[in-house]
């Protein structure tokens, strides 16, 4: 398949790795902030193949993992209500709330449906006028154009029974929060390729400059990851700190203008709480006031939500790249994908799930 097979070519990957080895002279800590990249790295054991000087750290790049517990508990409360069809992307179904998850709600009779695209949720609303259809609009900038369009479509169709539960996150403020933290060890970032395909990479230029940290936009195939890491290391070795683009076949500096237009029409910046990290100003998107009607949080009264995090779960430290899944005492024992204590174990993109699935232990 074009644009994919070539970037998985084992021969080219080996040469790129050899080239990388020639470039690196000292230890560097590089963070990727994209669930898809985390998954790809662990699935192919890429970190095993990198020169030992390079430490790859996984950031909060999984929107499922960073959605706060309160929001999940709200989702569960809404989904449990009669005459509600609760629609969601697949990976949200297993994320545990304080008591249960969407799968359990479904087993108890709730109408919970997986959709591949938000437009499918709109269709369900059209086909079921007597039910309230709620779509769990989670994601980073990559899913924002799709999530936003579902609201626009519902508006055009004058649907009265469609609403969205919004959990949208923006990457640049998270990068700043990590780089600005006194505990920070990260020296360079791999920018999430598809986030940048939508938003471009102009937003990262002030971040790179302010924190003297190279940020290299990187794709998703193994070769893309090696090339992104290579560019980051080249900058670090030279003492440079600018935004580089190792995914130029998909990403431009300006990004996708029509997508950005719709996003700013439907959404506005707002503060957001990141599970395990805390509130980061301006790091989320909420519906613009004119689209308030479609906000599920307004439409449903779910009473007082009392959320309680597991005291053992260290997902927060993992999401900030301060600890690795294997550092957690509950990893693989009390906390497994079947009975996860926190979101990083449940989402297929979460660092803990990836490590568990691919059998990582303390010995690697």
């Amino acid at each position, binding site marked *: 398949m074009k644009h994919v097979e070539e970037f998985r*070519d084992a021969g080219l990957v080996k040469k790129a790795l050899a080239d990388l080895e020639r470039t690196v002279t000292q230890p560097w800590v590089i963070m990727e902030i994209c669930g898809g990249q985390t998954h790809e790295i662990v699935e192919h054991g890429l970190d095993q193949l990198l020169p030992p000087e390079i430490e790859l750290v996984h950031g909060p790049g999984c929107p499922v993992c960073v959605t706060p517990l309160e929001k999940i508990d709200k989702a569960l409360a809404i989904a449990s209500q009669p005459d509600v069809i609760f629609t969601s992307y697949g990976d949200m179904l297993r994320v545990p709330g304080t008591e249960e998850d969407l799968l359990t709600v479904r087993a108890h009779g709730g109408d919970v449906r997986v959709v591949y695209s938000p437009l499918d949720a709109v269709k369900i609303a059209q086909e079921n006028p007597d039910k309230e259809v709620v779509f769990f609009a989670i994601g980073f900038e990559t899913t924002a*154009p799709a999530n936003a369009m579902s609201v626009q479509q519902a508006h055009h169709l004058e649907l009265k029974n469609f609403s969205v539960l919004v959990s949208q996150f923006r990457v640049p403020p998270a990068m700043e929060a990590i780089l600005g933290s006194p505990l920070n060890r990260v020296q360079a970032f791999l920018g999430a390729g598809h986030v940048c395909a939508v938003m471009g990479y102009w937003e990262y230029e002030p971040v790179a400059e302010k924190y003297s940290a190279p940020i290299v936009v990187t794709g998703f195939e193994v070769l893309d990851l090696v090339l992104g890491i290579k560019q980051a290391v080249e900058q670090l070795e030279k003492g440079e700190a600018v935004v580089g683009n190792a995914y130029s076949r998909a990403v431009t500096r300006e990004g996708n203008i029509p997508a950005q237009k719709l996003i700013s029409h439907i959404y506005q910046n707002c503060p957001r709480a990141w599970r395990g990290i805390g509130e980061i100003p301006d790091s989320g998107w909420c519906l613009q006031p004119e689209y308030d009607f479609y906000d599920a949080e307004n439409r449903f009264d779910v009473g007082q939500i009392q959320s309680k995090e597991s005291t053992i779960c260290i997902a927060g430290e993992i999401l900030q790249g301060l600890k690795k899944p294997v550092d957690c005492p509950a990893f693989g024992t009390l906390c497994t994908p079947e009975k996860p204590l926190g979101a990083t174990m449940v989402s297929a993109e979460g660092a803990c799930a990836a490590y568990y699935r691919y059998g990582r232990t303390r010995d690697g």
Partner: protein
Amino acid sequence: MGKLDFGGVQREVCLEYVPEAVVGQYANVHVGFAINLMDEKEAEETLSLLREIEILGMMDEEGSAPSAEQESGPGQ
């Protein structure tokens, strides 16, 4: 909406965000939406840069001209 082929799997995809798309082009798709078109020229440039490094590398290490054969890729 358009129909996209993902290596043998076909799906309806929303093309609202890539209005300049024409048949035969490649796109990145996310949750049923095309978010960008692939730039063929950039892709080729990235790959050929790598292939050049590959050849130079081989000459450095072995001190002789590389073979004319490309290394083959994995699987299907």
